């Protein structure tokens, strides 16, 4: 008896020991798994921090610009215009002359053809057009003079931001010794300053970095997304409601369902090719126009919206439908009064995420001519326009060094819009979400 008991005890002991060991191993396994999880999160965060870090480090300087204070004398003799309403005279007006005479008065000691050229290159090479616009808006200024801050050239701006090494020989710099001495003299008098770059947000694209802005691309993105939203939201929701609530379950609807899911995985360039073939070549819509971009992006976002809307409708409990029908509501009333309002937050979240995807898309726009230099700010969805991610791509490919910072600046603006849209999606979901 005791022997038997002892044997059982021993067996229990052995088992216990084994169990303890096993338990330890299981705990260790769980610990390890958690560590892996934390490591992957840390790795992901590190990559994100690196990405954001390089963009902010590179792009911060694009939000500042340099200006030079000059006394501009709107002398009719210099411009060669006596009557500002005379189109013929304006055609031959010498607006650049305003800047060069003003610079000559500021630096009378500079002489010689090459030196004068370097002196004139202090201010932006298309700054004269803002002077022209200023004078045409205030014709009474003709013949008077005023002190005004003029945008400096991007090379001068680089010096002000400390990006130019003054110790290297003159031949290896884009900026000459003479220009450096002129900048120093302006700086000593407080006639050159750095200020917040409003041009970056108010101007369209330009080939001069100091005059380039993202407003054109922002408006282009706005019109494109507007067209996309106006088309894809109603079509997507209607399609989802029909498929989920009304459509009979048969072969045909099954085929449609599979195709919608497939469509969501089609590379976006394919939609661009389709847009070129159908909207431009068949319907003769204008090239480079946001309306075509919006149509193409509608095709791209439709599957996303339909799929998310369908799952939002599916999530509405059947009891609500049955209750509505039981109280005598028609099927239409049941959908419109009960299912749709309850599914709306999910549909909106899906739509916003689809829109955010569309905002970041460039490939389909390549085929329909929206990857282009467009300086004028679009006035409507039929005017030629480009979009934010395309502006990033175009600037990254230009030779001028200052466009590197502009590229990062544009990325920051794009990321800002994406963050706002995603936050909006989270907010809508939190605010209108119903739990049962």
């Amino acid at each position, binding site marked *: 008896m005791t022997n038997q008991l002892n044997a059982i005890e021993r067996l229990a002991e052995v088992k216990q020991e084994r169990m303890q060991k096993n338990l330890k191993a299981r705990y260790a396994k769980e610990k390890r798994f958690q560590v892996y999880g934390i490591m992957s999160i840390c790795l992901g965060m590190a990559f994100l921090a690196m990405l954001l870090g390089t963009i902010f480090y590179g792009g911060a300087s694009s939000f500042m610009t340099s200006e030079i204070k000059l006394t501009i004398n709107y002398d009719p003799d210099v411009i060669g215009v006596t009557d500002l309403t005379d189109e013929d005279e304006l055609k031959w007006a010498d607006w650049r002359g305003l800047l060069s005479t003003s610079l000559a008065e500021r630096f009378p000691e500079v002489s010689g053809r090459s030196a004068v050229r370097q002196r004139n290159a202090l201010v932006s090479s298309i700054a004269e*057009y803002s002077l022209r616009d200023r004078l045409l808006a205030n014709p009474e200024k003709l013949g008077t003079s005023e002190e005004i801050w003029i945008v400096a050239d991007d090379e001068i701006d680089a010096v002000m931001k400390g990006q130019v090494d003054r110790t*290297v020989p003159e031949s290896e710099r884009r900026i000459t010794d003479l220009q450096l001495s002129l900048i120093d003299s302006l700086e000593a008098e407080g006639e050159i300053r750095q200020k917040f770059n409003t041009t970056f947000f108010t101007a369209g694209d330009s080939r001069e970095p100091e005059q380039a802005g993202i407003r054109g691309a922002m408006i282009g993105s706005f019109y494109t997304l507007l067209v996309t939203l106006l088309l894809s939201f109603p079509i997507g929701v209607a399609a989802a409601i029909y498929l989920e609530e009304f459509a009979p379950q048969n072969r045909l609807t099954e085929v449609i369902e599979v195709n919608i899911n497939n469509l969501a995985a089609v590379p976006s360039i394919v939609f661009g090719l389709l847009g070129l073939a159908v909207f431009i*070549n068949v*319907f003769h819509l204008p090239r480079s126009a946001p309306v075509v971009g919006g149509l193409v992006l509608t095709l791209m976002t439709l599957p996303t919206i339909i799929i998310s809307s369908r799952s939002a409708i599916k999530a509405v409990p059947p009891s609500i439908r049955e209750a509505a029908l039981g109280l005598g509501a028609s099927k239409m009333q049941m959908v419109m009064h009960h299912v749709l309002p309850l599914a709306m937050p999910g549909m909106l979240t899906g739509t916003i995420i689809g829109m955010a995807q569309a905002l970041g898309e460039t490939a389909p726009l390549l085929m329909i001519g929206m990857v282009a*230099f467009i300086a004028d700010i679009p006035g409507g969805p039929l005017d030629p326009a480009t979009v934010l991610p395309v502006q990033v791509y175009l600037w990254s490919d230009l030779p001028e060094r200052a466009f*590197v910072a502009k590229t990062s600046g544009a990325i920051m603006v794009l990321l800002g819009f994406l963050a706002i849209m995603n936050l909006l999606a989270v907010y809508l979901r939190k605010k209108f979400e119903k739990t049962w």
Partner: protein
Amino acid sequence: MKKTIFAAILATTATMAAVPSFARDQISIVGSSTVYPFATVVAERFGKATSYATPTIESTGSGGGLKLFCEGVGENTPDITNSSSYIKQSQFDACAEKGIDIIEVKIGYDGIALANSKKGVKLDVTQKDLFLALAAEVPDASGKLIANPNKTWKDVNPSLPNVAIRVLGPPPTSGTRAAFVELVMEEGCEAYEGLSDEVCTSMREDGAFVEAGENDNLIVQKLDADTTAYGIFGYSFLDQNSDKLQGASFNGVDITFDNIADGSYPVSRPLHFFIKKQHIGVIPGVLEYAELFLSPAAQAEDGYLAEKGLIPLGGAELKEMRKAVQTQKVLVMN
């Protein structure tokens, strides 16, 4: 039910068919990515200085541009295409088939640089050196073709430094690549007799020549990081990065503005654009845009195009081009 579906389909088709066609009032330009940085400068000034709208410029590559250009006559086709190589007979025929009359405008020259970091060794090469360094197959001592055995520049030519060959260049779709092959590889090939075109134009694929994509800024950044590598790109990028990079000299001639302008630097090519004659007078400003491109302010030696790195046309050529634009001289081939 059937009636509803039928009505829905009818309504959809009706809205789609009712789209009117739109009049275009800005010039549409497509074509070469090499000409793009120069054409955009002129286009911007054209929009600012005149009452015309700013032209839109798509960077599609020379070949892609001509394809779009030759699709036909009409508002939904481009008015002008930029090109970094001359129009080919096949492209000309495709255009002629659609009844398009072309006006050719040469706008200047662009040098192709073989550049590296200032911290590295500057090269002085000949076309033959580069052929031996970069061709997929080269003849050995007995004249038999073998896979390129050259590992360092010294293997190619004893006077060159003992640095491993690593050259970053544009992909085959690029006009710069086509010009490099024509002006360097094919020239270098002529040092040997009886080599086929195939041998002359094939680049190595064993890592000594790396296709680095169309983005020249990317090549510039890579050269800055890797001081032993060399890169092939347009002169304007070297000009903008003259504090970081140095260009190799060909046959002892340095790549400078003056040397490209007087033709002594051998690796340079003319840049063009082609105007669709049928669009002159239909799309406002086409001729005026071409005139602005050839105006003194743009083409002067210290003009704004030279500022961006384009080598402007000389006196006689410039006059000839201005006359071609004024008289709307149609291009004829064969």
